């Protein structure tokens, strides 16, 4: 664990980003953890690798915040699997975060293009 205030904010930023990606992964259908990680990798064309273990605390945190709901089902290989789905609150949160991200990305883009 990293300590100290100076180093806390990048971590927060990262975690917030992972949260947003997870929410986005669940827009179309409910998924279990492995599928979410795989979807993010494929959708980012192999650029973004979510640290697999860190995925789960993030999922549980989102569930506790009421942004995700979960049900237990069976996987393709007929094993017990926990499926996550967006709640209405999660959907709203995703919208807000996506807007914020767009704004930030455009701002960074403008800065980088400035002469």
């Amino acid at each position: 664990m990293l300590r100290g205030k100076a180093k806390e904010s990048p971590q927060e930023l990262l975690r917030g980003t992972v949260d947003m990606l997870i929410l986005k992964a669940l827009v179309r259908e409910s998924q279990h953890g492995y599928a979410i990680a795989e979807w993010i990798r494929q959708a980012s064309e192999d650029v973004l690798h979510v640290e697999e273990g860190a995925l789960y605390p993030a999922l549980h945190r989102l569930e506790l915040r009421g942004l995700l709901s979960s049900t237990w089902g069976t996987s393709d290989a007929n094993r017990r699997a926990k499926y996550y789905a967006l709640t209405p609150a999660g959907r709203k949160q995703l919208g807000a975060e996506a807007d914020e991200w767009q704004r930030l990305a455009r701002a960074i883009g403008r800065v980088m293009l400035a002469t």
Partner: protein
Amino acid sequence: MRHDTLSALRLRLRALWRGRQLDRDLEDEMALHVAMREDANRAAGLDPEEAQAAARRGFGNLLLLRETCRDLWTFRPLEHVSRDLRYGLRMLRRDPGFTAVVVLTLALAVGATTAVFSLLDAGLLRVLPLPEPERLVLLHWTGTPENRTATRRFPGCNEVSSFDCSVPYMTYEGLSGAAQGVAEIAAFSEPQEVQIVSGGEASLSDSQFVSGNFFSVLGLGVGMGRGVVPSDDASGAEPVAVLSHEYWRQRFGGDPTIVGRLIAVNGARLSVVGVANEEFHGLDATHPPGMWIPLHAATLLKTPGSSLDNFLSDDAGVLAAIARLRQGVPMDQARNELTSRFRQLLAQSPKPSVKLDAEAGILLSSGARGLNALRSLYYKPLRLIEGLVGMVLLVACANIANLLLARASSRRREIAVRLAIGAGRKRLVAQMTTEGFLISFLGVGAGLVLGRWGTALLAHFLEPALTAGALAWGRPTTAVLGLAIGMASFTTLVFGLVPAWVSRPVDPARELHSGGLLPAGASLGERAGHLGVWLVTGEVALTLVLIVGAGLLVRTVVNVVSFDPGFRTDHLLTLAMSPVLAGSDTAKMADQLDGIRTRVQAVPGVASVTWASAPPLGSGWELSILWLGDGDGKIEMVETLGIGPRFFEVMKIPLLAGRGVEPGDETSEPHFAWVNRAFVERYHPNSDPLGKSIRVAGLGTSSVEIVGVVENTRYSMILGDIRPTVFSPTRSGARNLLVRTAVSPLNLAAVVEHAVRQGSPRVLVHDVRDQRQSVDEQTSDARLLATTALAFGGMALLLAAIGVYGVLSYSVSRRSGELAVRMALGAVRADILRLVLGEGLRMTVLGAVLGTLAAVGSTRLLAGFLFGVRPLDPLTFAGAILLLLALATVAAYLPANRATRVDPIVALRSE
């Protein structure tokens, strides 16, 4: 945000509810992920082993992640509490000796405190079960000392210094009428013994005579029928009685058809109109009345001798007054109004019983707690016991703190290890506090149970009759429970904070390095050691004070019990008699006295028989006015007693001069009198008293001649002063048969009682007792105090011994390394013994010195309870100090002896 927290809470509660399911879910979820990654790896062409390893590596620390997730779902503080509780229980179980001592100490301390407090609560603090008791006030009048002799002392009234609360009826009536604006006043008598005949069966009961508004002023409700109402209390009104719930239950078996029944009370026919409610036991809990009868109805009752007063007379005040203030009227205003009205009354009265002087006025005191006779009777003993309890409590606390210190010190390595592996200090304190909570919970719980028994026991000692009626005694009230809870929290805190304070400066590195070999290196041990020594010193000092007090009280009891009251108290049976009043002539019993005496005399085992107006060491003796000189109006109070033939011979009271009482002396108008030595010393110091005539109120209208002088006796009270006493023969006043027996008195009780009935079937016999019983009763206060003090003193002694033992044991175990070095360097057994014993005796002697000083300063508080022994009795002091030193030496010897058996090789190797 609020919504978030709420839903999170719900989810977490569900997780908590499901317990282990959460662990399984987390495990399954993560295992699935790893398995799927492994499959994917294999599909990508890795060999099975490598596929598995890569999947695991990619995922990270499985266990840690699971714990992280778990923590998200659980309540951390709650988890900690339950873990601490389990840990605490384990620690307590691991050291059962420690746990038992602490729990027992706490239980005894809490038990003793709550018992005493329950009693204080019942007797001194509890408010009467009446509506708005705070508006009730007792009336007292003030006046010069001469004024005060005019009225009778009313038990329970003397709470407001020495002012009396008895008033003549006239005064009550006048005040009551005038005070309507500020208060409504009711009058009541002391409960007085009356004879009840119902269904052909005669028995005795106490009746309280009350004004018609008594029930309405108190707001006293009824369980059945109605209470006394104003129209009952008028001349010519039909006489009525309202029974107390307790009496109704006992005498009439709770008969539901009681209302409307006629009963004979002292020969007058009264109809029962109601039964009072169950909660009310009278204004004086030590003397509950069996019934309430209107004042005017009292005039119809036959009054043999002087056992009933004329309540309506203007001469003497035999009534007390209680008032209910009008809503919103402050006590001061009521007092001013009543005082001015009282002075008006005195000014108008043709022959005022109270002189109108500058001091004449009315005082009010709160009536919310009733008459508080209990308070005046038992106030001092209870306060004293409270003090004793407080001291034992202190000793107990010191002991517990001490045990904890030793324990915390012996656990310092554990604490150091836990700090070293990263436990937070806060968590450590929380853990210790939890342990403290557990142990105080156990101790206080056990103490509450003990306290219930203790209350019953104490109440039994104080007033055996009260436990029978159960009354409100011993039910723990909110105050008592509050006290217990307070004590529990206090101990919990002490438990948590003492070790926390001791372990505060623990430096893990230093503590683990030092290994306990060098005392100088261990700041913790030093701290605990010094504190422990001081605690034990204080304990020893307190204990000494306690056992000195106990010793003084025990000597008092020995003195009292072996004290010679001036007559023989053994082999003496006393019977109280009263004529059955229903329809018969009261003079009859006097006529039948000779017959009764002859029959009782004939019982085998009876040595001699006489009678008296009052039993020895019992109630009923009287103070009468003695006119001095030749009618110049100077008076003094002397004790008077009516006696029968050969009274002095039967009682074994030595005759100093003159003759004894012969049959035939007891004429209806007395001619002769006998006096005691105190009388002679006071009134005839230089002349022969024989043949002198004296005038005493109550002994006829003319003078009587002194024909005999007897030795002083303590006839009425063992512990009181000896007063000048006048004995005169009586027949009509014979209320007690005194039977000197040759065998054990109680063996004859039934036979003698039967003989009395045969002698006169119309005599009611009650209160048959062995005279030793009366001695015991009169000394019950002293014995109660001595027993309690002895018990507490013993407890403190034991605790102090444990304290000395504990501190030394701890010190020996800490210094085993040092001792081993000493022995290795050639110290012998005697050196080691001297070393450890010396340490123990140093703190004991210091404590004893401090304790002696404290005892010298405080035993005078006991002065009022002592008899035949001075507060600074050197023998008691010396005995107490020796006892304490002896016990401390024994307590110190055990660890000292253990110290000599330290094997240097073992001790040094273990470092």
